[in-house]
């Protein structure tokens, strides 16, 4: 066990021991579903069903039921796709990159963030699949041996890379999430009272007994998966950005896109994690595990990535001017001053200006303000994708073909439906599986628990005074 500086704020507040952690985190699973949970899941499920109905409508009648046209071939569909994929990014970042950077605070949020990733990727994946004119032939996009020549896919196409990137991302994320869940599911199984729950959790825990061998294998697998997902954090959104960057469309054809998209994805992902965690810590009473310190750490990342995104926006403007290409220049002029000016300025306000408020410690430690900001950021990031996609293509090279685009009820319903799907899945997850990784939190309890830290400080107080002449450490509650 690594020792941690006593002047660091504790990551687990209150007086906790291993059993208390298990009790706290398993409580929501074992308790009867609350009224608010039932209402929430009903509403989410209705929204989800409505979205599926709209999807069915699209498949039956064709993409023409959307508002797209000869000039604007992608609209809300791909905007939503990129938005959801971006949201999903936080999970991978927390589980892989923060693990490598030994950020202990990640243990409180990684489980929920990873779950969010999986649900967001499912929502995201619906869009590229159902935006196809002939969705029943989507297997054409897979490179499999066939009797048509054989006819292969086009390995030059960024859409094909997307197929690989998204499916890999989903698979790795799912495995990583599930691997982490196994010990916790076993704990839930051991505590389960009803027979059905016992059997179900037993199957899900793959017969975990907590033996040393199990732990050893679990750790190895986690390491391998962490290694696999680390490059994914960068690659997935890079490849998503290639969907635009490899084109010739002014406003899309930009080399800055990969870092800009990755930063934007983390930005929006963290915002979404915060949205969910702030609700979860309140509703499930987990404030002692998801502390203000956690929220502050995440807000710091938000201000960093938000600033990167802001730099990217300004760089784009500079490049457009510097290129002296009339098409590039017009594209950016049109973003700011064209018919979709509101989306550009919405994006600028939500993504660049408002996160700068997090430079103030008071604001970034304020839960209500943070919650409000996370919503603003996700709106801003949706606008960003809309700006990139629609305002670039609606006026490209040939002015005769310029057109406007607005969504129909079908597109709006599908988008609302994915939000319903996301929350339905998340609510089911929160009710049936531990939203905080118990095993991992337990692993940092000794070093980062408040009571443990205080005890440690007390036992070393004398020595400290003697050696350094300082007063005893008094952990202050934030």
């Amino acid at each position, binding site marked *: 066990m690594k020792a941690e500086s006593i002047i660091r704020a504790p990551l687990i507040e209150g007086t906790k021991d291993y059993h208390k952690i298990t009790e706290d985190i398993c409580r929501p699973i074992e308790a009867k579903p609350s009224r608010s949970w039932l209402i929430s899941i009903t509403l989410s499920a209705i929204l989800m069903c409505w979205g599926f109905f709209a999807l069915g409508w699209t498949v039956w009648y064709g993409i023409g039921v959307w508002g*797209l046209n000869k000039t604007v071939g992608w609209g809300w569909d791909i905007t939503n796709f990129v938005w959801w994929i971006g949201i999903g990014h936080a999970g991978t970042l927390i589980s892989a990159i923060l693990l490598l950077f030994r950020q202990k605070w990640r243990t409180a949020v990684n489980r929920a963030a990873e779950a969010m990733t999986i649900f967001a990727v499912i929502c995201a994946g619906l869009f590229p699949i159902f935006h196809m004119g002939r969705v029943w032939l989507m297997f*054409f996009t897979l490179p499999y041996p066939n009797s048509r020549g054989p006819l292969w896919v086009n390995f030059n196409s960024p*859409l094909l890379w997307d197929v690989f990137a998204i499916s890999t991302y989903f698979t790795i994320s799912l495995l990583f999430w599930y691997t982490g869940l196994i010990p916790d599911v076993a704990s839930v199984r051991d505590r389960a009272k009803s027979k059905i729950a016992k059997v179900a959790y037993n199957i899900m825990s793959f017969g975990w007994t907590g033996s040393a061998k199990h732990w050893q294998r679990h750790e190895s697998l986690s390491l391998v998966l962490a290694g696999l997902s680390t490059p994914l954090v960068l690659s997935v959104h890079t490849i998503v950005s290639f969907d635009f960057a490899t084109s010739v469309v002014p406003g899309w054809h930009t080399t800055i896109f990969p870092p800009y998209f990755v930063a934007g994805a983390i930005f929006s992902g963290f915002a979404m994690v915060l949205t969910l965690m702030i609700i979860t810590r309140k509703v499930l009473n987990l404030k002692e595990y998801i502390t203000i310190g956690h929220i502050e750490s995440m807000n710091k990342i938000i201000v960093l990535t938000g600033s990167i995104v802001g730099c990217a926006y300004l760089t784009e403007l500079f490049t457009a001017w510097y290129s002296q290409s009339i098409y590039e220049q017009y594209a950016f002029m049109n973003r700011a001053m064209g018919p979709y000016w509101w989306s550009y300025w919405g994006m600028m306000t939500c993504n660049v200006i408002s996160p700068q408020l997090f430079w103030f410690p008071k604001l970034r430690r304020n839960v209500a303000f943070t919650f409000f900001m996370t919503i603003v950021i996700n709106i801003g990031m949706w606008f960003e994708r809309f700006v990139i996609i629609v305002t670039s293509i609606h006026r490209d090279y040939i*002015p005769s073909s310029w057109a406007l685009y607005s969504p129909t009820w079908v597109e709006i319903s599908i988008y609302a439906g994915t939000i319903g799907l996301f929350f339905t899945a998340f609510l089911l997850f929160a009710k049936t599986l531990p939203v905080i990784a118990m095993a991992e939190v337990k692993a940092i309890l000794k070093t980062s628990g408040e009571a443990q830290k205080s005890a440690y400080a007390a036992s070393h107080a004398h020595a400290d005074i003697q050696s350094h002449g300082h007063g005893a450490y008094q952990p202050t509650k934030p």
Partner: protein
Amino acid sequence: MDTNKYWKGLDELHKEASYMELRNKEFAEEIPVEEIIADTLTKKTSGRRDFLKLMGFSVTAATVAASCKIPVKQAIPYAIKPEEIVPGLANYYASTFADGTDYCSVLVKVRDGRPIKIEGNSNSAITKGGTSARAQASVLALYDSRRQRKPTKGTGEIEWSQADNEIIEKLKSIKASNGQIRILSGTLLSPSTRQVINNFILEYPTTKHVVYEPISYSAIADANEKSFGKRVIPGYNFDKANVIVGFACDFLGTWVSPVEHTKQYVTNRKLHKDKQTMSRHYHVESRLSLTGSNADVRIPLKPSDVKRTLVALYNKIASSTGGSSAGTVTIPSKAEAAVSAMANDLLASKGTSLVVCGLNDLSCQILTNAINNLLGNYGSTIDLTNHSLVGQANDKAVNDLIGELNNGSVAAVIIYNANPAYSLPNGTAFGEALKKAGLSITINDRADETGSLTQYSLPDNHYLESWNDAEPKAGSYSLVQPTIAPLFSTRQGQDSLLIWSGKTTSYDAVIRDYWKNNIFTKQNKFSSFEDFWENSVRYGVCDTTTSSPSPTTFNGDVVTAANVIANIKSSEIELVLYESVGIGNGKYANSPWLQEMPDPITKATWDNYICLPVQYAMDNKIADGDLVSIKSGNTELTLPALRQPGLANGTFAVALGYGRTLAGRAGNGVGKNAYVFVGFDGQNFSYDGAAVTLSIAGGVHALAMTQTHHSIEGRPIVRETTLSEYKRNNAASNEDRVKEPEYAENSLYPGHEYSPLKWSMSVDLNSCIGCGACGVACTAENNVPVVGKDEVLRAHEMHWMRIDRYYSFTNPNSSLLADRVTKEKEYDHHYGSAFVTDYENVNVAFQPLMCQHCNNAPCENVCPVAATNQSTEGYNQMAYNRCVGTRYCANNCPFKVRRFNWLDYTTADSFPYNTATETLRVGMLDNITRMVLNPDVTVRSRGVMEKCSFCVQRIQDVKLQAKKENRTVGGDEVKTACQTACPSDAIVFGNIKDPNSTVSKLATNERTYHALAELDIAPAVSYMVKVRNIEEIQSKA
């Protein structure tokens, strides 16, 4: 019944045990199953795995053999193969599209007994292989499901024989009582038909034949009668004119013989190294017509000023040629400047100039004749000998007939190929008057607004089902031959008239006789009539024109005419009624192809509208689609507004031909009938100058326009220069051309290997007049779906070929002849000033745009399934059945030429009940209408991307032909549908690797450039710089 007992052997007879045992077995010998399936090396019996293997195999085999449903295909061969028909091979028959004032000599492509496409007939001395959108769309009218299928009497169907008996009986009794009979027909270009009518008149001497055209040129004919004693419309030679002055005359779009005029017009406007001159075209008009948009100098004036300017021009020319003034008129100062410029140019080209006037006004036409007479144009650019025959209409006679009908003095009226109840200004009153006739018959293709009112409605054949002839110009003849048996129980009108006249000869015999007696005798190429006839049918045309013009003496009364014009009062707002390039006078209103063809200027489809001057609309806060009412006298009409740059201030314009009620599914209720505003001046119908007032009706009627942005934003996509600059530097405005090879040298694209064939296209922007025939031809050739108004409104139109139209401001600081397009820098400099708010004076540029077949195609690398890829012959091809519909190719297409099947427009997908409502409504999916589909081109299903294929089926066809003949494909041998349709020869297609092909020669022309070449996409389509014949002045910006 007891049967005889036969036995085969003793063992059977005695029922021996061994026999009995064998008899009950299926196989006489034991089947060595065990041996077969056992692994003899290891064990004696088969194991579980072997069993599973064998079972798996047998189940699969059984499944494959038993359950795959093989559809039964029934192919019924011709028991006796008709001569000439080879299934899968197309035949072409020469014929003639002659309908009212429309004339076009054509070749009809017939596949497996079905006419499916119209091509121009290059043997014609008149249309010279050119076609119009209407000619292209005429094949669709054959399969119009709204055509009348049986003769009707009242509301009930009737047999032909019964109808004939009744009609003959009635006609005879009318003849006996000396009752008046009237035949009211559209223009009859056919001399044989006129003969048939003459025969009818011989049989029924009280018959009078009145020719009626809803959009009439009667005044021209009247003026020529007064001027030269000949009631005809002259033949015009735009090719011989170095200076052309048009007065409200859409001679390239709709007027008299647009295809012929276009062919002539562009001859003198083509530019190349050895011919660096072109005609100068002035155009004085009120609305922005197709012709006006092609003029070098355009002077927008309201109708009353147009007329007065004509007088002013006469005075100017008369004073220079020693004549006397016809009386003074006051005209706007800009018109005065125009008059002196025009007069200078006209006088400098005496005998090689041409003034034409499209106003159906006697005085204006007399003045026009007088001007041409002073300029000595008769006999050179105007030909009264080989005159046109489209001007048979006599407005006065029509008006008289209405009077006769009203006072009940007409006993029988036969309306043949005309729809007066719709197209007369007082059509409803005409319908009432019609009821007073004892016998009323219509012979039309459908029970239209008139046919539904007459006692008998007798369906006529479509021209593709008929024998006929035509004489579009005196001495020029062409034949119509049937290419399919009549689809319905229809009969040619001529046959009906023959039967009623008591003749037993059929109409085709009449034609032969006529040709034998009248045309055969005029030629000396063939000695036997049979040879002559064979040849005429084969080539479709026969030219017996003489080149010696008859001397003319002008006798017109110029002073009176000028006086009439001088007395015209101007109104604050004057109305112009015009013929639409697509649906004409309303006759083609039920053609989905023509309805969906964007108007060349407004780019609106499926509607008519009130064109308002932009400034007027801005002042009154009227936006496109706002409903407004115009009122003239007691007549009021509410239509959506459309802001039209180039429209003269104080002028509104509305297209005729819309608002049909009984045209059919596509045409009914599209727009409003503006014929109500047509005036009658005692002599002729008038279409220009009625005083109107406007009120805002409230509400919006969205207009489906295929182009909603009208400025090119200073992008070098369309390039144009002036003639003087071009003469100084053939690469004027095309300096960027030299950079094109650099793009290829520095390319990042790996490039492709090409076969010795590499297809390429060149489009000359200086020739293209923007008429839209190419687009309709493309629709016909490539089974391009019609989507209907609602879908066009959502920018879902499917046209593979479109013509972009851009406006630019005219520099008001420049003199008239330097009437040039503003440069982008000037525009920026003057932004917001009067310089860029003069919406009246605009220039127009057209650019036909189809897939550019980029050799480094941006669409190709983004397709995840490689559905679109580069062929070895240099064009970009689509594998429809591979396409999954991600639409990335369309997003990445810089030219936005890719078209996605948003909905089920063709019923080609496998989902039931999901066809696009609008497409269903317009009737393109009827089984009859679908007979027009080209079997060589896949009908695309919903969810699939499509686009111009360079007519790959035509390329394949020529390649196969060459292969059969064991030769190489000629460089110019393949011709695309748009190319053959084009009346201005603007499109050239061919093998660019063949140094002798036209397209490879054009590639080195200094005017040639590739649009967006700077993207290094290497398009296979190139454009040639447009040249305006105006003088360049130094920029004053």
